[in-house]
């Protein structure tokens, strides 16, 4: 006696502000299958390389996604720099790492808020975003933008931060971290939150690996894989231990992200300690000729940039493989057989960034 209906989820939906459309085939309240449809946000910006010169294109690359914008700009610059054989001054590398980790904290805090909203915990949403605003203040002060940093540039960074300012930021981050503990404790210990996260959206280690999950989705299933261990930018000097949880459920993915926030605070502390003096940019001469793959770790997982230059000011090819794109097959797997109220929670535990995925 089951009644099979199709419930549309998105593209306009209060829980997920981004336009993805899922047709949820539902029996009573159990999801049998989720059929996605895409393209609501496809821009085709990879093809803009034909129209914008390779330096201007940094701004386009930053706008692949507004949440992890800095790492997109940084990844593009890194790929082009490798093609052109540019070695950055160390201060530029460290500043980039500093901003990348700040953007990771802000993205994870944003995610914490959204997932809290998905399971109907409005207060937690408000508190997560309240703390996030403090991070954004630091970002705005150092880069001039709140969400689109606009600080990366081929050959270095567009801005420098004085050492006094960095010290002050270090102190501010300490107070933010202290304040954050109250919120993350709720995620870790609150009964009703655990009810909504534990045992929901199981993705086994084999499935996660086979379906190509990346980032916290993969690490929540017990696979230690973090592109920061590759040692790009300042990560060559800073030890990054991949954070792994082995429960394979939504709670594990949540815990991975929460522990990553504290890890990022730790990395920023190390970056601030070791910040070398010197130039932040070098002059770029000539045009890129050749190709390169860059691998970076975004808040949502591993991101790949492919750049191919032909010796003119326009690149031949630019290609991004974003983490959400890789995480959608695991998501569809997780959605099979879950309850309808758990759909938003599961969708959010991969931290979807549809604008990344569809570019």
């Amino acid at each position, binding site marked *: 006696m089951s009644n099979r209906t199709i419930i549309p989820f998105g593209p306009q*939906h209060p829980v997920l502000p981004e336009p993805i459309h899922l047709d949820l085939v539902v029996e009573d309240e159990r999801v049998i299958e989720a059929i996605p449809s895409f393209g609501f946000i496809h821009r085709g910006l990879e093809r803009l390389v034909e129209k914008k010169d390779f330096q201007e294109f940094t701004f386009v690359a930053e706008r692949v996604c507004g949440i992890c914008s800095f790492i997109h700009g940084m990844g593009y610059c890194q790929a082009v720099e490798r093609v052109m054989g540019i070695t950055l001054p160390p201060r530029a590398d460290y500043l980039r790492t500093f901003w990348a980790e700040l953007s990771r904290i802000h993205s994870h805090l944003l995610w914490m808020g959204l997932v809290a909203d998905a399971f109907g915990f409005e207060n937690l949403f408000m508190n997560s975003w309240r703390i996030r605003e403090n991070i954004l203040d630091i970002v705005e002060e150092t880069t001039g933008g709140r969400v689109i940093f606009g600080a990366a540039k081929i050959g270095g960074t567009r801005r420098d931060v004085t050492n006094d300012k960095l010290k002050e930021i270090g102190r501010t981050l300490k107070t933010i971290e202290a304040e954050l503990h109250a919120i993350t404790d709720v995620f870790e210990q609150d009964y009703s939150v655990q009810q909504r996260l534990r045992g929901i959206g199981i993705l086994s280690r084999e499935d996660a690996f086979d379906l190509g999950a990346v980032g916290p989705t993969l690490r929540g299933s017990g696979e230690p894989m973090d592109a920061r261990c590759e040692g790009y930018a300042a990560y060559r000097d800073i030890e990054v231990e991949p954070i792994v949880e082995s429960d394979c459920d939504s709670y594990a993915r949540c815990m991975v992200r929460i522990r990553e926030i504290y890890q990022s605070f730790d990395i920023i502390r190390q970056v601030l300690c070791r910040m070398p003096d010197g130039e932040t940019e070098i002059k770029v001469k000539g045009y890129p000729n050749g190709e390169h793959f860059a691998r970076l770790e975004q808040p949502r997982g591993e991101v790949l940039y492919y750049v191919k230059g032909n010796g003119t000011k326009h690149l031949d090819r630019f290609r991004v493989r974003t983490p959400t794109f890789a995480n959608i097959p695991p998501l569809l797997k997780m959605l099979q057989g879950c309850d309808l109220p758990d759909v938003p929670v599961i969708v959010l535990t991969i931290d979807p960034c549809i604008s990344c995925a569809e570019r």
Partner: protein
Amino acid sequence: MSGWLSAILYILLAPVAGGLIAGIDRKLTARMQRRIGPPIFQPFYDLFKLIDKENVIVNLYQNLYLTGFLVFNIVAGTLFFAGGDLLLVIFALALSGIFLVLGAASATSPYSHIGAERELIQMMACEPMLLIAAMGLYLLPHSFQVRDILAVDKPLFLYLPGILFGLLYILTIKLRKSPFDLSTSHHAHQEIVKGITTEFSGPALAVVELAHWYETILILGMIYLFFAWNPWVAVPATIGLYLAEILVDNTNARLTWRWTVTSSWLIAAVAGAGNLIVLFYFLKAGF
């Protein structure tokens, strides 16, 4: 005579008081989230705006059902404040709920349908406890009449602690507060958009809001009954318990319908029925 007076006062003043309570609720919620929050009269602004808006009617029967929802809410409240039969009040309340469900189900939107289903589930979770509460209140005055219960010169909450707890538990469901804001939600967003109210717009939504205000006052009246032996205790106790509901709303995630039904029946069975049985034998033994 005073019963009729208070019934008329209820009909006239409940919207005002209910709106104010909703406003204070929103303000306090905002403060608990470290926001300034809307002005206290915000619910009235919302209501008048909704009346002013275009009424997009999905089908004409929707209006009939919504009118039924409002009318039976008022009937239930009027019966209660006139000192009438508590059982009748509970049944009228259930009937009004059914009208709301019918109104939502008459639309074609899947969100509205699921909201209606969940509303039914919520009513299923509430009703046993409401009936047990009525029975508990019956035991001391041997009457279901509200005026007789009011006349009992004993602190009822000491006799009925389990039932009061159970009633408070399902009041969270009735007031649509987290963790049980399953069928529709005032603030936080949910997977079925606005659930039961998805298809109501403009004046129709205003009717739903107004009916909720009447319902809130009726529910607060029910809590008042437990402390009615002394108004100086009863008023602060009712206010305090409502504030506790707001706090619970702000400190819990939304739970699933399975959890809602299981836990509320469990509490009805353990706290409610247990209290009832114990009290029954105590009274029989002549305490």
